[in-house]
């Protein structure tokens, strides 16, 4: 049953992607991008990656829609057709796509138990995680304990980005008030 659901969802994803490319009204693009996020989140749920699906739904469908709308407020809502030739960018992206697909050819088949990624440190995590970290959830113990420094670095990056955005937004807000006062 799962492959059929995935096939249906991935077909819809392809249709939405083509529609996004063809769409000239940028507002329609924002709505279609939000639909794309919900679809890819559903695919991830079917693939059992529920945590990734939740991140995709909150960032892709929730925050991105709001941010894109805020950007749409600053620019015009109709996409202008490009004046430069389109062939070179098409060739570059086609080449990049072919390279990525060529790279997947040497990957082990999906779901293989003895793939290299499952034999490196994962057996030790599974065996010793409970006694070493006392965390009942294996994924949480890896993210917050074994990869603690990594997670700390990620959190620092996001925190710094948040401070930067807040400072920038505050600057424009204040300037706006001054303009109105003048």
């Amino acid at each position, binding site marked *: 049953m799962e492959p059929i659901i995935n096939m249906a969802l991935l077909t819809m994803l392809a249709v*939405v992607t083509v529609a996004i490319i063809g769409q000239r009204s940028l507002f329609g693009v924002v709505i279609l991008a939000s639909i794309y996020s919900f679809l890819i989140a559903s695919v991830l749920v079917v693939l059992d990656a529920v945590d990734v699906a939740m991140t995709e739904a909150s960032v892709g469908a929730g925050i991105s829609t709001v941010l894109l709308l805020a950007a749409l407020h600053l620019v015009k809502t109709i996409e202008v057709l490009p004046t430069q030739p389109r062939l070179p960018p098409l060739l570059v992206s086609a080449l990049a796509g072919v390279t990525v697909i060529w790279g997947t050819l040497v990957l082990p088949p999906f779901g293989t138990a003895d793939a290299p990624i499952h034999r490196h440190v994962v057996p030790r995590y599974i065996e010793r995680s409970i006694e070493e970290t006392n965390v009942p959830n294996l994924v949480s113990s890896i993210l917050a304990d074994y990869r603690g420094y990594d997670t700390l670095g990620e959190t620092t990056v996001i925190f710094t980005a948040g401070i930067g955005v807040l400072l920038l937004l505050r600057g424009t807000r204040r300037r706006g008030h001054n303009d109105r006062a003048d």
Partner: protein
Amino acid sequence: MFIAATAAILMALSLAIARAIWGPTVFDRVLAGNSVGILAILLLAVVGFLTGRPAFLDIALTYALLNLIGTLAVLKFFRHGDLAYDVEERKP
């Protein structure tokens, strides 16, 4: 039974996407986007029961809240043309 429900949800999903792509007015698109969000929630719930692990049902709540925020942002954008619109601020 869950298989039939999944098939129905996928069918409805494709119809909503068709409306979002062809919808002539903006409001068709907003409504279709909202419907896709709701159908994603339903699909998450049904797939949870289909695979015998309904524990993921809580995540559907997150989806529901996000869907609300997205739709509110879109509608506010259309009513006022500005996401940071504040009624109190604009009073004379």
